[in-house]
């Protein structure tokens, strides 16, 4: 260790090796069998349970928890996975505190919901550890479907199509499949290569051919796919990053939070990753929190999240905000960047007025060796001829685009809320619609 948190500039190796290991360990360690039984016993098995309504994939949560209670975690996993084939990842990354666990009646009763996410992980881990894949394919239909993007939407769509007996070719632009599960999630949420393990497990359904290094608009065209396949599903995500629009935001210390997160996820040795002494993250969503917390865990002396609106409007959940605070990240709300001056960022306070958000005129400067942009991603390279809406591919019903035979889902499509679990639901539902259309 040659550097420390006080070392100026953007440098690697600020921490001892064991501190990296501790800092990036599993955020929510898995339950052991007894903990799971105790946690499961807290479920009231509600009538038409609110947690099911709150789950974008409508998992029968009381049922799977009762199956854990009754000593069959693998059967519980079956219940989860039949609704959400990426139930393992969703158990790790879902903002459960704003979904199922917020709806849990025990949250209303005592502010302490049943820990549905951790129970779901217990069940799905048990199944994966046993090496089981509980689904089988229907007889071949002879139909071929192209799925573009091996992220949550594409994977869910491909698996469901394969189950129905279709031949699926799954294209992905990146070196590894998984999309944001592999490249876009904080390391401590999916440790030990879980994203790849889950994809490998999912592929065991058979009938899915994975083709990597192929991107729409590069090696692939929509017309070409439409001509070759019986149907096309686009789950291409949002590859563009919104610009800051502040003076000097193309400086050396300024980069995209998604790239920072992706690099971190792929790093063999975290000690080799450079991070600033003083880091400022611009934005208020999950990406901002993931980037800020990880910058801190990499040894930055100070990390500030700069969010232009009030804290209550931050898209990141209360849990995420608390997590950031607990790791020593400062959240500065009602402030926006104005200019980046070398190792400083100039900011201005904001206020909500009748004309929307405006600067108050009061400015201040923060030390900032490194500035990370996390103000949202946008669709890049949408194929011509598809109707867009608000910068996303317009879909109706179960992912139908304006072009016949082409479906879309996940972050690239309208609707949804840019969550893994929503993408899974959209991919699955589009697959059902494709199946109904083809058969």
């Amino acid at each position, binding site marked *: 260790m040659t550097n420390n948190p006080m070392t100026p500039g953007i440098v690697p190796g600020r921490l001892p090796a064991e501190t990296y290991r501790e800092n990036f360990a599993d955020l929510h360690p898995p339950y052991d069998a007894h903990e799971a039984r*105790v946690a499961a*016993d807290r479920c*009231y098995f*509600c*009538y*038409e*349970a*609110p947690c099911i309504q709150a789950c974008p994939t409508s998992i029968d949560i009381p049922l799977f928890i009762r199956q854990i209670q009754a000593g069959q975690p693998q059967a519980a996993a079956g219940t989860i996975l039949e609704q959400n084939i990426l139930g393992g990842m969703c158990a790790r990354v879902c903002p459960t505190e704003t979904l199922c666990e917020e709806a849990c*009646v*025990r949250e209303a009763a005592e502010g302490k919901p049943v820990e549905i996410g951790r129970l779901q992980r217990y069940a799905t881990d048990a199944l994966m550890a046993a090496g089981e894949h509980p689904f089988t394919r229907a007889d071949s239909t002879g139909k071929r479907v192209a799925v573009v993007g091996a992220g949550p939407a594409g994977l869910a769509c491909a698996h469901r199509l394969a189950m129905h007996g279709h031949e699926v070719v799954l294209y992905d632009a990146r070196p590894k499949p998984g999309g944001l599960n592999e490249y876009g999630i904080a390391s401590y949420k999916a440790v030990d290569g879980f994203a790849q393990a889950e994809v490998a497990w999912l592929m065991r359904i058979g009938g899915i051919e994975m083709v990597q290094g192929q991107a729409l608009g590069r090696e692939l065209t929509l017309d070409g796919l439409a001509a070759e396949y019986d149907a096309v599903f686009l789950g291409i995500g949002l590859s563009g990053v919104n610009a800051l629009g502040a003076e000097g935001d193309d400086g050396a210390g300024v980069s995209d939070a998604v790239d920072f997160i992706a690099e971190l996820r792929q790093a063999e040795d975290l000690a080799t990753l450079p991070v600033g002494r003083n880091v400022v993250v611009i934005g208020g969503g999950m990406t901002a929190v993931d980037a800020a917390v990880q910058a801190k865990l990499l040894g930055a002396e100070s990390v500030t999240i700069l969010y232009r609106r009030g804290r209550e409007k931050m898209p990141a959940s209360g849990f995420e905000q608390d997590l950031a605070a607990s790791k020593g990240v400062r959240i500065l709300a009602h402030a926006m960047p104005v200019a980046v001056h070398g190792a400083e960022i100039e900011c201005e306070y904001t206020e909500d007025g009748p004309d929307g958000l405006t600067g108050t005129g009061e400015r201040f400067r923060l030390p900032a060796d490194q500035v990370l942009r996390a103000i949202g991603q946008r669709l890049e390279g949408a194929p011509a001829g598809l109707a867009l809406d608000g910068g996303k591919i317009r879909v109706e019903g179960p992912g139908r685009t304006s072009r016949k035979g082409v479906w879309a889902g996940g972050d690239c499509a309208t609707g949804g809320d840019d969550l893994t679990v929503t993408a899974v639901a959209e991919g699955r539902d589009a697959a059902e619609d494709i199946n109904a259309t083809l058969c």
Partner: protein
Amino acid sequence: MADLTTDFVGIKSPNPFWLASAPPTDKEYNVVRAFKAGWGGVVWKTLGLDPHIVNVNGPRYGVVYGADRRVLGLNNIELITDRPLEVNLREIKQVKRDWPDRAMVVSLMVPCEEWAWKEILPKVEETGADGIELNFGCPHGMSERGMGSAVGQVPEYIEMVTRWCKQNTRMPVIVKLTPNITDIRFPARAAYAGGADAVSLINTVSSITSVNLDTMSPEPSIDGKGSHGGYCGPAVKPIALNMVAEIARDVETLDLPISGIGGITTWRDAAEFLALGAGTVQVCTAAMTYGFKIIDEMTRGLSDWMDGKGYASVADVVGRAVPNVTDWQYLNLNYVTKARIDQELCIKCGRCFAACEDTSHQAIWMKEGRVFEVNDAECVACNLCVDVCPVEGCITMEELAPGVTDPRTGRVIAAEYANWTTHPNNPAAKAAE
């Protein structure tokens, strides 16, 4: 401070909590630890004639768990003491000498022949023990040899053996009853007729706690086979309370003292047994689960509760609830209640709705926004919604005042008490007049 001392058929103890005849009272070592912890007395684990019996060398207990591995029920296939009679007698004598203020009752089980009882009784008497308890309850192992519940299930035998004991010892005789019988009043009456000073109940319930679905062996499994054992612990308390109450209110055994046994885990359980007529209580499973220190909670809890209610002594509590135990036919049919759901407390789980809609009377509406309300026109006041509601006090039963019309029956509620014996639907009603 309430006075917890008891005098039960002449056996005095500083509090009503005795350890039941069972593994915790098998040896001097355990009993001394219990007395140091504060237990009021013990019933020494059952003695038999030499040669002493042997136990299995595999598991002796099976268990039923509630949430978080809380022990709700325990069964055992352990037999009576497996130590030589002389060893037990020597230890009993020593402990009684060292702890004169504690109750020392000795449980006995010998063959159903008078010579056997005549042989053992003087030996027990010589120890200075305060009394004996006849083990007519043990449902496993010994019953195959014509002892334990094999005697307890035949009232004539109970009466006969009790009489032998009364004729051959000056010590008070407590007869321990088995619940593995159709009507507990018959063995109690038999004990009474034989001259018993008291009865104690319940002994354990014949049971298989579980089946190992891999080996297809009942648990506890001995080399792949299991045998029915004796069930005890919190799960059997309701059975025990009923049997105690049946004896306490039976006109033929009204003045027969009772030592209550069966799932007593906290002071509250004990107080309930006392209220239903028990003069002392005996504890086993709770001690085997948590250790002897639970006696502190039990004595303090009972004392605090008695202070709060103004009961000066244990005797003030004994039997207080007995007059309120009656036959179904005397329950007031003009007592009409309806479930009331407190919307402020409701957490919208819907368990009341599922229970009522699926399994009962369709008397709960589920309205927009998961609002649950009672339909008085259908509510029969069964109380199931109260029982399944996870929030205490959220659903209550409200009594309808006389003069009000019950929307379910359309009848105006009468103020006067009226029961089945006079109900027009009762074919026997007229004959009873």
